[in-house]
């Protein structure tokens, strides 16, 4: 990998003020977008959001854009899942319902993965390159009645990719955590454990 550092030393920051000044000047001189492009973008976003699948009135979870890609990832792993789509209604901005969000924090024992799920999941598993993407290897523990789940595992230094499997069939990622570009296997999140090269 291009970033692999054979020496365990943190490199000095780039010591080239002249070049940094040129970069800053270039950035400032970047031609602005054509007039009206920002407003056009906002209109396009709002129009597209109108066509996003939404949460149904009976509490069926809102279908996300990445479910299809996640399904492809699971198919590659030899597991078949099915998803359903609900296209009724018009979405409000995301405060209308509690949303999915996750965090990863270092602990004495390793890393603690947490995820907040908007619906009443029965079981949640942490999957990743560290457990062979197995939905049975690392079950998460429910944290209170508000849809919180957590798991704590030791991890070797380096970069790890992970995702969550809900009720043994829904593969989800945290859209706000660093993501691995979708290389055709579906998206996943990434975390780096310090102490080794990436």
């Amino acid at each position: 990998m291009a970033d692999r550092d054979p020496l365990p030393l943190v490199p000095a920051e780039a010591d080239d003020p002249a070049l940094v000044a040129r970069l800053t000047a270039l950035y400032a001189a970047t031609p602005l977008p054509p007039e009206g492009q920002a407003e056009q973008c906002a209109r396009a976003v709002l129009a597209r959001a109108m066509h996003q699948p939404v949460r149904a009135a009976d509490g069926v979870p809102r279908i996300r854009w990445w479910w299809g890609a996640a399904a492809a990832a699971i198919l590659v792993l030899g597991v078949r899942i099915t998803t359903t789509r609900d296209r009724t209604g018009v979405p409000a901005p995301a405060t209308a319902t509690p949303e999915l969000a996750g965090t990863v924090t270092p602990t004495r024992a390793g890393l603690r993965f947490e995820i907040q799920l908007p619906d009443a999941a029965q079981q949640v598993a942490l999957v990743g390159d560290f457990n062979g993407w197995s939905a049975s290897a690392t079950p998460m523990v429910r944290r209170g009645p508000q849809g919180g789940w957590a798991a704590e595992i030791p991890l070797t230094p380096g970069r790890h990719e992970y995702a969550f499997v809900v009720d043994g069939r829904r593969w989800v990622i945290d859209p706000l955590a660093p993501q691995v570009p979708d290389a055709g296997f579906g998206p996943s999140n990434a975390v780096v454990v310090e102490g080794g090269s990436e």
Partner: protein
Amino acid sequence: MTDAELIARTRAGDSDAFGALVTRYYPACWRFAVHMLGDRTDAEDALQEAFLRAYLAIGRYDERDQFRGWLFRILTNQCRNALTSRGRRVRRFINDEDAIGQAPAPLSELFGDVDHAALSHALSQLDASQREAVLLKYAEGLEYTEMTAMTGAGESALKMRVKRGIDRLRSLLEPPRG
């Protein structure tokens, strides 16, 4: 109106407030995406995807974070995805002369200043992860802790990317010897 007020109004369903947020941050996002992707059309697409995801996720935005940083976290992911998609597209159409003929002019041609054009071209020659790190550090002025949260890469790896990126830029900009 402050970001917090616009976000609160957006959450309440005020589309004009969201439009004001887009207008406020579009130029900054544009600068980053244009230099990251080196193509104005790809940058425009990446921005639309980023703002769409920001809109759909605005309920998860934590007011303790800077909105700009939160938005850039989404944007850097979109730029990475765009570069991955472009890799596939280029491989598919590499022999399509029509597609090559219709390709937009390189970004460096936008700059009247020769120095700027040379630096823009040199930036486009960097490895994408080095370009991302150099832009976030020296163009956006972020701290490494902020870059770590944004990219998922470790601090030492990011410092190495910045250093190697700057070294490579310097060598690309050196006048030919002899």
